[in-house]
């Protein structure tokens, strides 16, 4: 029996109207220049997000978000499920890879000033995605329910308490009470598997649509010189290059997950004192160290409050950078480039300092 694939494709096309999308894909072009490599970081983030979803679903089949069951269920995943420890390791490492690529993507956009008009909204949705990714990491850190994750969550959820008026309420909302308990665990699990995935998908769709609408940015100097930048077709030339990068990243991720699989500590004891050397995930280390360097009191307010305000102002500054750096070709624009370098060096130095 001869199967007519053309008829089969036409049937789908009639119902889903895919032809305009395919036509758009074949007509879409990607600028080629010395910074083109950074274009590939965006799709790499998507790759790690897909891996997170797949491995996360596999872990959720056996995970129990209760005080009694959380740690034991992960121990069960690691000891009884076939290659469960590897699935958990891939989930953990793909989160690390994803956030690392999110940061690289963000720094590249900062340095190439791709956030400039008309891509302000793209930048802002991207910043929202970074924040959601970090909250994903924060909520996921508690789920193994060992001493380290409990203590780190106690420290983390206590930070908003330094903000006047709403701070205490935010802390209570995050913890589901005055202290970190089983309710916090359930709450964090619901955030991690229900609320945050919905939020990240909603923002991601808007971000991708905006990227498609505005297209890829070209280097600032070429834009000022009104130079025509050579382009590459999205399909198949750019997609094939992306596939090569995905394959290499996939191999690297699986190898790292195999060689450096995370262990699991004993179940957390709510009454036990905090263990020594409590550290958050690596992407929070510089913020953690920033909080530590402030003295107990600065004048009439606490040092923690000042640190939280500085961090919030910094985040807001980065969020609205397309409006602050609205003339990127001027001295003001160069100042923002230097500020980006300063921010990167600051994060690296403070993260290392925190580990010492």
């Amino acid at each position, binding site marked *: 029996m001869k199967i007519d694939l053309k008829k089969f494709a036409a049937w789908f096309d009639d119902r889903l109207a895919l032809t305009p999308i395919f036509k758009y894909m074949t007509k879409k072009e990607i600028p080629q220049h010395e910074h083109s490599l950074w274009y590939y970081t965006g799709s790499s983030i998507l790759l790690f997000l897909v891996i997170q979803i797949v491995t996360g679903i596999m872990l959720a089949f056996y995970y129990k978000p209760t005080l009694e069951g959380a740690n034991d269920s992960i121990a069960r995943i690691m000891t009884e499920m076939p290659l469960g420890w590897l699935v958990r390791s891939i989930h953990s490492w793909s989160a690390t890879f994803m956030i690392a690529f999110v940061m690289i993507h963000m720094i590249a956009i900062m340095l190439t000033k791709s956030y400039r008009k008309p891509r302000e909204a793209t930048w802002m949705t991207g910043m929202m995605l970074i924040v959601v990714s970090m909250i994903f990491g924060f909520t996921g850190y508690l789920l193994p329910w060992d001493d380290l994750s409990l203590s780190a969550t106690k420290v983390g959820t206590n930070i908003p308490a330094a903000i006047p008026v709403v701070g205490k309420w935010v802390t209570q909302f995050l913890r589901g009470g005055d202290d970190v308990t089983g309710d916090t665990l359930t709450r964090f699990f619901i955030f991690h598997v229900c609320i945050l995935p919905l939020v990240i998908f909603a923002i991601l769709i808007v971000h991708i649509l905006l990227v498609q609408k505005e297209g890829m940015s070209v280097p600032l100097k070429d834009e000022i010189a009104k130079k025509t930048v050579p382009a590459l077709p999205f399909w*198949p030339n750019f997609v*094939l290059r992306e596939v090569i990068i995905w394959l290499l990243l996939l191999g690297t991720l699986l190898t790292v997950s195999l060689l450096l699989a995370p262990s699991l500590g*004993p179940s957390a004891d709510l009454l036990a004192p905090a263990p020594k050397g409590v550290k958050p995930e690596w992407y929070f280390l510089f913020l953690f160290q920033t909080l530590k360097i402030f003295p107990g009191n600065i004048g009439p307010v606490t040092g923690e409050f000042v640190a939280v305000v500085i961090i919030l102002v910094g985040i807001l500054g980065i969020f609205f950078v397309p409006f602050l750096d609205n003339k990127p070709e001027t001295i003001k624009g160069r100042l923002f480039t230097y500020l980006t370098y300063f921010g990167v060096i600051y994060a690296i130095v403070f993260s290392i300092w925190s580990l010492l």
Partner: protein
Amino acid sequence: MRGIRILCLLAMVSLVLTPLAALQTSTTPASGPPAKAEVKAGAKPAAAPEAKPAGKPAATKAPVKRTEPVVPAYSDIKQRSAVIVFYVWLWFSIAVLVYFLLQWVKEADRVYKAKYYEPEESPRKGNPMAPALGE
């Protein structure tokens, strides 16, 4: 170009199917206790034999709290071998796929530079094979 595409497809299918077949053999749980004091992941601790006095009902036992960390490890030599085979195969498949994809990229770039798909400048214009190709 079509040959390269078919080879890429075959390599991708084998990349997925072969490790699945290899891992199918690795699902057997371990039979013995772990060698070290820590609980090793993948290694199922052997059930402790419980002495039950005859005629008496079994007393309800409170679950024992684990105090050692769970360290990731293979359940047995079979699983270890399967994982090693999988990783060797993974990198081999990636190398083969990357090679063919690079060939495909070169070909796609050449076709694009030749403006093959632009009707005004296409070298296909006047191609005697055009009717046979359905153009």
